């Protein structure tokens, strides 16, 4: 069993708005292991990014607030650490890359400056020259050609894929234990996406960090993750290892998501049926139904799902590692 480096327990995150308070993340539990990748999948508004930001303690407060739960990094609750000390962890032990490589780099500094800054903050014993050398080394590591030249360039001189490589170089500069990747390839073209995913996998093999991969693309999940948590309306609705999840999804939402992706094989016969869909849409967080959040879109809904006897809980199925939040899990 791999070493457990991060444990999130009953995380609750609330946001205050003009229309009242909403719970964006409602009792989320998961673990991250060394050298493994955990995927968090969900549609917009499901709370996946908020979960990531709370691990980094980057939830803007106000209006946001971590209202409950623990985030244990190697046994220590990150939420109890004073914000000043948080800096020794953030970017150093737990690093993050974002979706938009254009907006997450500072346009007025060179790429080199921005990578050197990481060393300046976290490895104070290095002098200026060493920092510069290390920055070049990092660029080489992420596969940027002629790094000696690129290190002096500004973000606008690089393409989208290159910028994302620079972001990865920055985040890995201190060899973090955990890398949180929030939709790292959503803004990129498929051929570039394949390069970046390959690079992340290679670096994970070399450095052994745990990765939290946040995405809405089930294809990316299938290719990169070891374990998967599916989120819906701020809750995890299903958890399993990647193989089990894709082969035997037990929650109707997971199954619907997997089925609604067109696959090349389904069209092979030339006759094209309709795509299976999930009817309706995600309910507003202001107005969640009583009982199961998925009831208005579910094909298997019964009276029990409408919550006369409480909400469904995330429960293990038999002896497997698969957990489902559903009164009527699929067989």
């Amino acid at each position, binding site marked *: 069993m791999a070493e457990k480096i991060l444990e999130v327990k009953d995380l609750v995150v609330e946001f205050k708005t003009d229309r009242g308070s909403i719970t964006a993340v409602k009792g989320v539990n998961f673990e991250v292991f060394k050298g493994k990748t955990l995927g968090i999948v969900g549609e917009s508004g499901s709370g996946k990014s908020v979960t990531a930001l709370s691990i980094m303690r980057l939830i803007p407060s106000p209006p946001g607030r971590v209202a409950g739960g623990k985030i244990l990094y190697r046994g220590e609750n990150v939420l109890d650490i004073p914000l000043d000390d948080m800096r020794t962890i953030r970017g150093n032990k737990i690093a993050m890359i974002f979706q938009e490589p254009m907006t997450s780099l500072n346009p007025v500094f060179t790429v080199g400056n921005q990578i050197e800054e990481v060393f300046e903050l976290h490895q104070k014993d290095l002098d200026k020259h060493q920092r510069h050398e290390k920055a070049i080394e990092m660029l080489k590591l992420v596969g940027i050609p002629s790094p000696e030249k690129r290190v002096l360039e500004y973000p606008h001189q690089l393409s989208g894929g290159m910028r994302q490589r620079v972001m990865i170089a920055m985040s890995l500069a201190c060899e973090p234990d955990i890398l949180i990747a929030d939709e790292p390839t959503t803004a990129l073209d498929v051929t570039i996406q394949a390069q970046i995913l390959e690079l992340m996998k290679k670096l994970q093999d070399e450095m052994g960090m745990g990765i939290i991969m946040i995405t809405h693309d089930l294809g990316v999940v299938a*290719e990169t993750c070891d374990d998967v948590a599916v989120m819906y309306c701020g809750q995890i609705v299903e958890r399993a290892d990647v193989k089990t999840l894709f082969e035997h999804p037990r929650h109707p939402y997971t199954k619907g998501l997997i089925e*609604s*992706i067109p*696959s090349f094989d389904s069209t092979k016969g*030339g006759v094209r049926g309709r795509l299976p869909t*999930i009817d309706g849409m995600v309910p507003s967080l202001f107005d969640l139904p009583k009982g199961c959040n998925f009831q208005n879109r579910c094909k298997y809904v019964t009276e029990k799902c409408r919550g006369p006897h409480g909400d469904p809980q995330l429960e293990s199925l038999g002896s497997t590692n698969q957990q489902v939040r559903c009164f009527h899990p699929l067989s």
Partner: protein
Amino acid sequence: MSEYLLEVNSLSKKFPIKGGILGREVGAVNAVNNVSFKIKRGETLGLVGESGCGKTTLGRSLLRLLEPTNGEVIFNGQNIIDLNSNDMREMRRKMQIIFQDPYASLNPRMTIGGILSEPMDIHKLFTGKEERKKRMYQLLDQVQLPKDTLNKYPHEFSGGQRQRICIARALAVEPEFIVCDEPVSALDVSVQAQVVNLLMDLQKDLGLTYLFIAHDLKVVEYISSRVAVMYLGNMIEVAESSELYGGARHPYTKALFSAIPKPIPGKHVGRILLEGDIPSPMNPPTGCHFHPRCWNASDECKKTYPGITAETATHEYKCHNPITL
């Protein structure tokens, strides 16, 4: 009446680059370069390619929302490039477009009723009050939205619903041809499937012809009967969609398809990792634009741009060293 609704002959669109203090033209971007293709009535032609390959420019040039630099667009037997602006407006009743971002393409200060009325006002269709109302209810019914939608504003709707409104607006003037420019890329997966199904149903019911532009190959392959692949302004391969996956002859097409993450866990054999980025269209490589990234490139590829090879009546590609099947 010809079998083809739309025929495009050597269409090009150049964007000048101005520079210097005098603002002289110092170069040009060939966003669309000498592209020719035909679309049959009732057919969907898919158009795929990565960002910057010119697929959106091509879509807009067909409607003359961007004025093409060169070439012919023959719609229903008539070259629309020659039409004056009045005749062109008349013609656009038959050709409509649906845009990518349903948040940006609906006026936030107009009710849905107003949004749906506008195209009919412009083209003086369904002018009677009762007739207009009936038509709007019919449109909402076609895109599966409730009747009370008419008095609401765009912000009251989700992304998928907004895209339905955009579709209803395009249908309002009873077009024959619709350019769908990335209509589902901004939507969540579960909603994406709903909109794809809707577009396919409407095509069947109303006999529409689509040009379906997207970078998501899975969706394109699903909805289209034929697929065209673009790279740096050129159309490099066209084939039946069932033929293209697995039967691609152009190395780029093959790499593009192999790069898609598949929702099946496990090791992926046959992934082709292309090196480098797409070159800048301002300064494309000599010869075949794809040669710096191609593993099959020969000296020939560096010198001359390959011509069209017709494999079958429906499968064409431009490559000196095609993949042997």
